[in-house]
């Protein structure tokens, strides 16, 4: 047998591996480890996100940003209303807006909260897809 023929025969024999009887069990073990790793990664990312969010929220609250935003919001609310009130055709609209003058800032914060929630959901979904 020539060297080349022997080497080809050797490669063929190396390639011809019999199917081991527990091949399905082996595959299940690998996919289980894959799933465990995936779950761990999701929990890790979620946990780190939560911690980061809490730290960020603490920083925001501590810096007095919320009260400043509230002031700005109230000022802009007053400005908008006075602007609309100066328009004779929009007097009805002013009445409509002034119904919940105390509620305006709450609505604003609720909207902002829902927006943040939506961003959070989007990010989570994006991480899952990656």
């Amino acid at each position, binding site marked *: *047998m020539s*060297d080349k023929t*022997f*080497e080809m025969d*050797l*490669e063929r*024999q*190396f*390639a011809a*591996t*019999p*199917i*081991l009887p527990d*091949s*399905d069990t*082996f*595959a*299940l*073990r*690998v*996919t289980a*480890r*894959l*799933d465990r*790793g*995936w779950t761990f990664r999701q929990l890790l990312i979620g946990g780190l996100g939560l911690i980061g969010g809490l730290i960020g929220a603490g920083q925001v609250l501590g810096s007095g940003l919320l009260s400043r935003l509230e002031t700005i919001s109230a000022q802009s609310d007053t400005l908008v209303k006075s602007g609309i009130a100066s328009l004779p055709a929009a007097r009805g609209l002013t009445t409509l807006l002034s119904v919940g003058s105390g509620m305006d800032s709450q609505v604003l914060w609720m909207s902002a909260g829902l927006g943040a929630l939506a961003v959070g959901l989007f990010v989570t979904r994006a991480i899952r*897809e*990656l």
Partner: protein
Amino acid sequence: MAPSAQTLASAHDLDLVALAVTGGREAFGELVRRHGSAVRGLLRRMGADPTLADDLAQDAFLAAFEQIADFRGEGTFQAWVKRIAARLYVKRWRRDARLDLMAEPPEPDAAPGGGESGAADRLDLDEALRTLGPSERVCVSLCYGGGLSHVEAALALNAPLGTVKSHVKRGLDKLRARMAPRRPLEDPESAHV
């Protein structure tokens, strides 16, 4: 929607790889089912005991899943994972300092069944590999089972190219001597059968 098990079972390897790239763990599971035995078999032929071979094969498949986007389909998926597994085995062996490639190769063992008077005309590859020294066995398996070139094997083993080549040459000579069919002149009776 995730493809059914039946769809996956009939899909081509490259299609399964494409699904795995997008995070399809079921598709990757099908690849493991198809090629797990081959990877485990290679590791056993390299000299790993069955438990270590299974552990390393699992690690190789997990590493393959992590790097699946790097698989370009230039060779087969099985060959790609085999290379990963072979490198992992070498890494483990080097870590455990069990492989001294510079050591003198041991004297050839007697063939199973007893040398010249051996009954088998042709030894099985697995039996023949067992008669090689550890370094020869790893080098031959890396190059002929793992698909690495001599240069790649030398890099994986962190050994001089000449050393790897000589281990491969010696290993091949021994395998050829043990696996070659007996010449008819040595056994006149079998020549007439």
